[in-house]
């Protein structure tokens, strides 16, 4: 009887160790919550992919709506948005200056006319998800931290490449430059970065 109990205890311990080992292989180390995608860690490939991701995220089409202050940026030179509209608590503006008052569900025709999207907004005041002035190291760390990325799991982060507002960066209306690569190339780099471990480039 005593011998059976000892054998059972050893077997249970081994199962526990195996389960722990698998979870550290399959889950991103920086992220809590559900993760289901397969991670095949490769820090060199991951950092290389993030170089491409970073170029897109720091382009005006992405960064202009991830400002360091509470006023969005505008134009290819990322100047402060004309009229100085404010973020507001939900990221959709304040009082008579809400984003959707000018930004329609679709692009307005005409050079530099307001670009459109049904969900036009900045990140909310309680999670600003700033891109402006971030180094590649800082931005990579921020993107995988649910407390700084809009409470996204790694799975949701992967899916975010096809978010409507992200896609609108490649449909930005007349007079605005495109991000530095196609959406398909960006998505490939984004997925590679995450699926190889979402490593952050070294801080400089």
């Amino acid at each position, binding site marked *: 009887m005593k011998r059976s109990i000892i054998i059972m205890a050893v077997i249970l311990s081994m199962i526990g160790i195996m389960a722990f080992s698998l979870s550290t292989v399959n889950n991103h180390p920086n992220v809590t919550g559900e993760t289901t995608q397969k991670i095949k860690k490769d820090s060199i490939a991951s950092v290389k992919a993030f170089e491409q991701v970073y170029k897109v995220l720091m382009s005006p089409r992405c960064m202009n709506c991830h400002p360091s202050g509470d006023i969005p940026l505008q134009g290819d030179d990322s100047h402060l948005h004309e009229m100085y509209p*404010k973020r507001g608590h939900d990221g959709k503006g304040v*009082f008579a*200056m809400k984003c959707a*008052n*000018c930004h329609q569900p679709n692009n307005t025709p005409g050079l530099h006319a307001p670009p459109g999207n049904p969900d036009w907004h900045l990140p909310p005041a309680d999670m600003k998800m700033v891109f402006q002035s971030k180094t590649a190291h800082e931005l990579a760390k921020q993107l995988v931290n649910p407390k700084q990325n809009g409470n996204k799991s790694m799975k949701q982060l992967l899916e975010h490449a096809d978010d409507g507002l992200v896609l609108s960066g490649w449909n930005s209306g007349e007079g605005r430059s495109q991000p530095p690569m196609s959406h398909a190339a960006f998505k490939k780099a984004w997925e590679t970065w995450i699926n190889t471990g979402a490593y952050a480039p070294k801080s400089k």
Partner: protein
Amino acid sequence: MINLNINQKSYEVDADPDMPLLWAIRDLVGLTGTKYGCGVAQCGACVVHLNGEAVRSCVTKVSRAEGKKVVTIEGLSKNNDHPLQLAWNEVNVPQCGYCHSGQLMSAAVLLRENPNPTDEDIDNAMSGNICRCGTYPRIRKAIHLAAELHKKEGRTI
């Protein structure tokens, strides 16, 4: 045909769905209080309320207004007695007056959402409404006065 509800009245207009709401309001319905300024959402002269929000009617397609409530300057009050209109009159705000229907419609959204605004709130709400005559100090003064009228006399905003 497109059905519009403007100032609590129904209108059926023969318009392309992409026509700017401003054109439908002015040219098809005949309410000319709302003004055309820049045509690209830069000046605020054309602001009307769409389900209570201060949209720029020059870039808002008429199809976006279907099934929603539009209020223009003509519908802001029944007897031109909205606290803002009384305050505008009292303070003698307009100079040329061209931008002021837009100014009033934007200010009305501010007061509805914040009946006791600070100077900073007013600046944040009104920064998209340009006045070429530079009546900004009087606009700010009149908004404060309208807030007082609402508070002391219970005037509806």
